[in-house]
């Protein structure tokens, strides 16, 4: 029973972070949510008795992807002296799932 609760909670957290990744308006926050999603995926692989994938996911999904996307987000999102490229705030498509 406790295992079912754990699995259910993990799945719920997975889906919440996935939605939050897509729905958050701040690009930085979206990337952080995506990193959290990667870490949760590593936990899920442990629950699925796949320690190999868990290791790879922890190193890749949380570490490498995180650095890569944070670095890219810094260059794309924050380096804004050009106000005309504010595309994800006023069009409303950044938060479609709400």
């Amino acid at each position, binding site marked *: 029973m406790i295992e079912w609760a754990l699995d259910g909670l993990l799945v719920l957290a997975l889906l919440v972070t996935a939605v939050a990744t897509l729905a958050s308006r701040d690009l930085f926050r979206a990337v952080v949510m995506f990193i959290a999603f990667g870490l949760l995926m590593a936990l899920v692989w442990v629950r699925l008795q796949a320690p*190999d994938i868990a290791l790879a996911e922890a190193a890749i999904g949380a*570490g490498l992807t995180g650095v890569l996307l944070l670095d890219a987000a810094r260059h794309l999102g924050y380096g804004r002296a050009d106000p005309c490229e504010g595309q994800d705030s006023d069009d409303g498509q950044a938060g479609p799932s709400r």
Partner: protein
Amino acid sequence: MMRFLGVAIMVAICLAFAGGLALTVWQIAGTPAPVNLPHLLAENLDASGVDHPITAVLLNFRSYDTLLEIGVLVIAGIAGISMAKTTSLEDPDLRTSDSLLYALQRWFVPLMLVLAGYLLWAGSDRPGGAFQAGAVLAASGVMMRLGGIPMDFLRPGMLLRFGLALGFSVFLLVAVASALAGSAFLAYPEAFAKPLILIIEVVLTFSIAMVLLALFVSAPVNRTEEPEEGEAG
């Protein structure tokens, strides 16, 4: 109004997609698997040369997939490098003076190198292997890169080409050699299976780390060339 309609249609499509997929999953789950793969694998594990089933699948039973995978990785690496702004490698802006990162680097990079070695070695009989080791190696390289440590081997040149192609070419060489020796493509001779797998794993680790690191490094650092980007960032 039109936007709302578009979102509604998209939501409907996604729900239908999810419903159909879930129904399929449910129906598949109701039918028993035609082949008992874990059982089949456990029976043949002795012939593979390694004791860990996943390594056996990756590098012996389904090594064709792994060969193609490293091929894809090399192509991705080449495509990434061709976008590279190679001058950014010696960009002084990249040298950070963040003391936290320096301290982290001093402690973590040797540790991560040891961890990568351990993971590679562990792959033969417990969770671990070339992919994880390569990822950790690449992560330590990324850390060094963020700290501004110059890594000359990532400049276009012989060393980079060699490192990128090493994994794929050694793997292919083994495959072709076994085909020429009379058995099937990629079928290792049973006596040499273990050392061959070990060699392939080592070169795969280096190549995977090299490709991932090269892809990370070759991301254009567009700061000096684009004035409208400003100094922020």
